[in-house]
């Protein structure tokens, strides 16, 4: 080929044209590569973004399930309220950032302007309640109890109230049915936080938290939140760039939450609450000889448990509060009050979170421990008025001595020295101050087998474990506090605290004789919760089975169908054979008939011949405080436990209250006459309430009804049963 081809062109041009062509095609290849990267390699990211772009979610609030008592009475329900809400987004767009609108709103609602402003500000580390801790994009409720007139004013003068809405909304209502308060058991709701919304962003249906959602934060509302909450409806609208709706991208309908049937009986609950409150009032009138002032009776708790199932019939904690304070966002001063020392923390459920020494009510455990350790139940043991152990004198209550008595009598009259003797004997057998490699530790082991020192597993949050001060605990406690003790010991003081510190610094990790004997009567470092005691006394009543305490019995759909039954759960047996159980049963019966509680029961007209009760009293000493009153009792069906802090003796402070609770349950009047018609619950309610097809419970519950049966012909239950039938039949024929 010549330099100038037939086109008449030089080689330079030819080469440059080829360069041009290569350049052009490589530019196109670049585009192809980039296209692949965007669409194939990272396409999924953009699919999500496109969805976020054109889909707007409109939230349809759902109705939270109700919490019912054992006969279907509504403990926590819902009611429609006119809610006035303010959109922050809209406020911030206004010139004065919404100040004028909020002032007008405050005027219409008759609230101080500052209150309204505080309610719509966002919570942060520096901002105390009242403030909004929900999503800033969600309308913030200012009041949940607007009158129709106020709502009309706001809606009619819409131009004066940009960003303000007033609409009926379904709100939680703690009904206080039959006068039952039940605040700590029911718990409360509060709005979801931004964090929770973000964390559940990728989840579906019920698991996904939306800014409008309210979440159970305490009590049953919290534990059964998933059952109660229902699914918030989401209408996914396709919109264009201006937000105009151009279609639907699917809809998740709102599904109302399920109802929760509990074992609580509202009337018994009311009786328990009233009697606890009255007992505290009475205690404050009584004079304490030791501290030379009236008892303070600062707090208390009471539990009624169905001994056959571990179900809670009533649970009260004092002081208490109105759970409706939480509804619609708690007011700042209310929250402050509920969490302050002055109010003595009414949010605490002292039945499961209140820990104190059980005092002599613990002796049933010690008696079982003695039996396990091989001491004869028929033997007699010495009950002197005092004993000197490890250089310290341990006295009986009121320094009484009873001579040589049986264990049963020791329980009846609450003789401490008998148990001191047994515990000391065991402590020596385990090697005393120089313990064996593997000490038997019968008293500690037995307590743990009774479920003490561990959570009972009740379906309520934040339960306390209590404490059994065994060797391991002593060592751990010593390791944690040794430095502080030794420092105080060196300070050279001569007061009781410093002396104890000195002692602890020296050998606080050792199980000393004093620790062992003190422990045997439920004193010292021993801590229990009222619920733990109720569970133990239920076991004594039912033949030795420790049930896991429960409050919920069943989850029922809004139309009254059983979703899930929460069956009683046996956790195990207490370590006591039938003989021991019978022995303790007899002894605790004696406490009612001629023992430490007799003056409050048989002595006060209780018909022990008709309805047999058993009890153990306890009066625990607390360093620097007045004594804790503990009274643990049981009948054939119920265990009733009551305790009060700084209120005196077990029988003196709680005796009347516990007897009256039994009187209410069994329909006993003050003279000892039993009227079954007046009995609130002479037998624990085993059946679930019966429901109408619309989901409302039928009152009162008749014992003849079987909740599994459909409530009416054609009810959904019928269909389910009918659908199952043919399969069964076919299977039967096949076999034939």
């Amino acid at each position, binding site marked *: 080929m010549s330099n100038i081809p037939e086109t008449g062109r*030089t080689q330079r041009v030819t080469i440059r044209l080829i360069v041009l062509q290569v350049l052009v095609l490589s530019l196109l290849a670049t585009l192809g590569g980039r*296209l692949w990267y965007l669409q194939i390699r990272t396409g999924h990211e953009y699919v999500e973004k496109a969805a976020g772009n054109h889909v707007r979610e409109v939230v349809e609030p759902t109705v939270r399930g109700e919490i019912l008592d054992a006969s279907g009475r509504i403990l926590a329900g819902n009611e429609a309220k006119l809610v006035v809400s303010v959109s922050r987004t809209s406020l911030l767009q206004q010139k004065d950032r919404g100040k004028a609108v909020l002032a007008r709103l405050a005027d219409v609602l008759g609230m101080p302007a500052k209150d309204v402003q505080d309610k719509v500000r966002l919570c942060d580390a520096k901002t105390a309640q009242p403030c909004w801790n929900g999503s800033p994009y969600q309308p913030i409720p200012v009041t949940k109890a607007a009158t129709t007139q106020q709502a009309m004013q706001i809606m009619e003068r819409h131009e004066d109230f940009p960003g303000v809405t007033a609409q009926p909304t379904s709100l939680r209502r703690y009904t206080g049915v039959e006068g039952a308060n039940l605040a700590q058991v029911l718990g409360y709701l509060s709005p979801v936080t931004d964090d929770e919304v973000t964390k559940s962003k990728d989840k579906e249906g019920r698991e996904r938290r939306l800014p409008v959602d309210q979440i159970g934060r305490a009590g049953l509302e919290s534990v059964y939140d998933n059952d109660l909450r229902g699914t918030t409806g989401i209408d996914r609208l396709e919109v264009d760039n201006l937000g105009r709706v151009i279609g639907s991208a699917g809809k998740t309908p709102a599904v109302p939450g399920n109802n929760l049937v509990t074992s609580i009986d509202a009337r018994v609950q009311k009786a328990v609450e009233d009697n606890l409150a009255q007992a505290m009032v009475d205690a404050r009138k009584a004079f304490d000889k030791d501290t030379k002032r009236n008892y303070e009776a600062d707090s208390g708790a009471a539990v009624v448990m169905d001994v056959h199932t571990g179900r809670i019939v009533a649970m009260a904690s004092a002081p208490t509060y109105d759970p409706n304070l939480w509804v619609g966002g708690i007011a700042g001063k209310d929250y402050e009050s509920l969490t302050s020392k002055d109010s003595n923390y009414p949010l605490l459920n002292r039945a499961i979170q209140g820990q104190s020494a059980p005092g002599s009510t613990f002796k049933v455990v010690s008696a079982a421990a003695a039996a396990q350790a091989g001491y004869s139940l028929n033997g007699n043991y010495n009950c002197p008025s005092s004993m000197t152990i490890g250089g310290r004198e341990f006295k009986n209550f009121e320094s009484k001595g009873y001579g040589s008595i049986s264990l049963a009598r020791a329980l009846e009259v609450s003789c401490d020295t008998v148990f001191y003797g047994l515990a000391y004997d065991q402590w020596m057998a385990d090697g005393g101050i120089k313990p064996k490699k593997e000490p038997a530790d019968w008293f500690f082991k037995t307590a743990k087998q009774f479920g003490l020192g561990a959570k009972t597993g009740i379906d309520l949050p934040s339960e306390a474990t209590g404490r059994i001060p065994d060797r391991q605990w002593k060592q751990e406690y010593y390791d944690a506090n040794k430095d502080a003790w030794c420092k105080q010991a060196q300070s050279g003081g001569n007061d009781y605290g410093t002396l104890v510190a000195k002692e602890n610094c020296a050998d606080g990790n050792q199980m000393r004789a004093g620790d062992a004997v003190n422990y045997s009567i439920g004193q010292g470092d021993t801590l229990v919760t009222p619920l733990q005691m109720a569970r133990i006394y239920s076991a004594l009543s039912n033949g030795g089975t420790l049930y896991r305490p429960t409050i919920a019995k069943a989850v029922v759909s809004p139309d009254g169908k059983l979703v899930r039954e929460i069956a009683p759960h046996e956790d195990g047996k207490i370590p006591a054979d039938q003989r021991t159980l019978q022995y303790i049963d007899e002894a605790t019966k004696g406490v009612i008939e001629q023992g430490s509680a007799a003056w409050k029961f048989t002595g006060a007209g209780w018909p022990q011949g008709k309805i047999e009760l058993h009890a153990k009293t306890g009066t625990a000493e607390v360093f620097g405080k007045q004594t804790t009153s503990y009274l643990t009792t049981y009948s054939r069906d119920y265990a009733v436990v009551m305790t009060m802090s700084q209120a005196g003796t077990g029988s003196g402070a709680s005796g009347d209250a516990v007897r009256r609770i039994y009187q209410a349950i069994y329909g006993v009047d003050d003279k000892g006459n039993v009227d079954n018609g007046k009995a609130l619950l002479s037998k624990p309610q085993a059946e679930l309430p019966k429901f109408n097809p619309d989901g409302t419970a039928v009152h009162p519950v008749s014992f003849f009804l079987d909740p599994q049966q459909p409530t009416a012909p054609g009810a959904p239950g019928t269909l389910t049963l009918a659908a199952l039938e043919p399969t069964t039949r076919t299977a039967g024929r096949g076999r034939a």
Partner: protein
Amino acid sequence: MTSSYSQYRLAPQRGTVGRVLAKGSPFRRLDWIMVLSALGLSLGSSLLVWSATRGRDSLTHGDPQYFLLRHLTNLAIGLVLCGIVVLIGSRRLRTAVPVVYVLVVLMLLAVLTPLGSTINGAKAWIQFGGGFSIQPAEFAKFAIILTMAVVLSARVDAGEREYPPTRSVLQALGLAALPMAVIMLMPDLGSVMVMGVIILGILLASGAANRWVFGLIGAGALGAGAIWQLGVLSKYQIDRFAAFANPALDPAGVGYNTAQARIAIGSGGLTGMGLFKGTQTTGQFVPEQQTDFVFTVAGEELGFVGALGLILLLGVMLWRACKIARQATDLFGTIVAAGVVSWFAFQAFENIGMNLGIMPVAGIPLPFVSYGGSSMFAVWIGVGLLQCVRTQRPIGI
């Protein structure tokens, strides 16, 4: 390779149709692969334009087919213009170039007078009655190609020189600079950018000395550097420019456009959401979607397969155009073809590139695909020019 001018003759006494279809007639000698791929792009694009506009009531006056029909009308006019160019033929065209040049420059000047109207910040249009308007800058593109081709090829095609002399290069650049200066005043920087690339392609193809080619590239780089350094542009303008890479720099303007375009294309995946089914498109999230961002419709609704098909069609067309340039019989034809290649290729790369977020956003339409009369007419005239170059050469090559 043999050539024989004797084979080139008109068929004896046949009807008009017969003459058009006769062996060796310009019609038979068109590069049909190229014409059909360009036609395919234009027809296919009518669906994309339709999809992008059928919901935009504010633009369509309530007629969903408004843009579809106008797009097809534009295409028809473009085809006619292309045919006319082919019939005029390369030789006659060469003599008519001064007229074209003067006409285009006059039209450009007219834009600057009160006759011109402003759209999107640039006074670049002349409005006629009935919503009909033209954008003379589009015509300036082929006018510059033709003018430079005439000047640069004169001495070479006459056989006097092997390469265009300095004088011719300076003349050609001077003639190109005039319309570019006018367009700069509008200001329509996108078109100026395209013309710069066209000039580069033309200098390359003309065989002009390397110093001219590199000089031009260097001048462009220096100019850009000077603008950057001297602070001629405000931060806002720089942000606008850089927003293609980082949409956060101009979230409400170009950044928004870029981000939405990327979402549209990215969400298309392998096979797209189907025509008329793209959520970005039906939701009108991409501004200017029927013009500068029409590629996003292909990306979202037809997916990787459809969008790559579009790029491949452009590739086929440009490959054939390059072939025409290489096979041209004289330097005039070579320069014209290479100029058109540079024009189409750069516009395609810049437009699709900004849709894909790898090029800065500039108001440059996608040849054959974007909605717009002037652009459609101009690119089809460009196709006509390429066909002229091809039909001029002897049969057999």
